[in-house]
């Protein structure tokens, strides 16, 4: 009933959405891993049913062996699922983290780059090279860091690093100001200051400056990643990739597969419990094996529907 509600809600939400991410670029759904996991669960279902058959025939050692194989397959299922989840996390596919529009994708790059600058600056504020009362105020830290980078003495490599971090801050500020003003980074190199004001003043009545585009921000980030000075610092910034209805997809994917994984864990607990009996396992445990086997088949049944619904359709 639990999964009936989930699957029913998913179908209605899917039909009710004007769009839905289905390409690999958007979802990073690996149909081969999903298919492999289906196979693993089918094999485990087979072994649990012959384990019960062995129990009925009082072949308890055989039953233990089959249950152990079922447990191992359940572990394998979770490992493959973990691999799939990693594929999603590597692309920041998580409910609430996915940019759905170009504007959100641009803002996400801005926020991530700010975080990189903040982390870089923390090295100096924590290390005592820059002493400011408001360490969270990046502009204040930047002024002090600029002074430190031009100072004499001390660690020369650290001063060189500080100089490049100051430039990184300025690059981020440039992007941020273009986002705030919503003007093109190519056509309007400076989004503040006299040049910007002059460009605005030169506009004819009703005209406006070219707006910032998604492609410009993408190019800006790729240039930054290609620059050897900043490549390692900005490597963790995700490429901007708007995915319409991506968060709804991610919510449904993680909710359904996550709850299914919890059910797998519960089934594994049932198998571990009976296997812990070791050679004491006798006919008294036949009902236990049958009922936990039935539960395991339900876990398989749910996955039989989740596989086509989430991985193929």
């Amino acid at each position, binding site marked *: *009933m639990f999964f*009936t*509600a989930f*699957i*029913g*809600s998913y*179908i*209605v*939400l899917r039909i*009710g*959405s*004007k*769009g839905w*991410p*289905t*390409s*690999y*670029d*958007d*979802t990073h*759904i*690996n*149909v*081969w891993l999903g*298919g492999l996991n*289906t*196979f693993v669960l*089918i*094999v485990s*279902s*087979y072994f649990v*049913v*012959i384990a019960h*058959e062995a129990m*009925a*025939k009082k072949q308890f050692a055989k039953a233990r062996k089959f249950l152990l194989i079922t447990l191992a397959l359940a572990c394998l299922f979770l490992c493959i699922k973990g691999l799939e989840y990693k594929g999603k996390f590597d692309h920041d596919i998580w409910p609430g983290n996915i940019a*759905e*529009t*170009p504007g959100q994708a641009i803002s996400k790059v801005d926020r991530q780059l700010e975080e990189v600058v903040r982390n870089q600056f923390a090295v100096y504020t924590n290390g005592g090279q820059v002493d400011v009362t408001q360490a969270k105020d990046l502009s204040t830290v930047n002024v002090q860091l600029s002074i430190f980078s031009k100072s004499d003495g001390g660690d020369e490599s650290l001063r060189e690093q500080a100089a490049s971090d100051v430039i990184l801050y300025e690059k981020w500020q440039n992007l941020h100001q273009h986002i705030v003003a919503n003007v093109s980074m190519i056509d309007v190199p400076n989004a503040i200051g006299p040049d910007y004001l002059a460009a605005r003043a030169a506009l004819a009545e009703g005209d406006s400056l070219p707006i910032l*585009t*998604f*492609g410009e921000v993408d190019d800006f980030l790729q240039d930054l990643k290609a620059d050897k000075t900043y490549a390692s610092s900005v490597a963790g910034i995700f490429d901007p*990739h*708007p995915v*319409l*209805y991506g968060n709804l997809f991610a919510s449904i994917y993680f909710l359904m597969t996550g709850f299914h994984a919890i059910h797998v864990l519960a089934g594994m607990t049932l198998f571990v419990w009976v296997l812990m009996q070791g050679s004491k396992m006798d006919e008294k445990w*036949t*009902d236990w094996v*049958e*009922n936990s086997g*039935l539960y395991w*088949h339900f876990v*398989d*049944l749910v996955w*039989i*529907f989740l*596989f*086509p619904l989430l991985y*193929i*359709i």
Partner: protein
Amino acid sequence: MAQDDHSAHHVNYGAVFVALCVCTGLSVLFDLLSFENRMITIVLVLAVAVAKALCVMMFFMHLKFEGNWKFVLLAPTTILAIGLPIALLPDIGIHYYTNLAPQDGTWGAEMDEYNETHHSTSVVSHALDE
């Protein structure tokens, strides 16, 4: 159920297992075939899923050998399965109101071009490329 002696019914579990594996292969194959009409893929893979579910329920779960009481057990989930979509349909499925979700906006020629280059290939063809 536990009291019933299911071992009295001979089931070839190996054959059921092979049938389930073949069905899983068919699901992947239908996706690989990429029918012009996506609805054909949807109907086929769901039909295969129903066939697999029936195999598991009838033979692995021994429902084939149970009495008609098994249908009573299915009643609550059937009611929920039908009732929930019907309850949600007017609001989410049909949208009787004007939908102002930002996702429904138009994002210009630049995004149309981006979507065309990024969203045109299927899940399987990408997986094969990797």
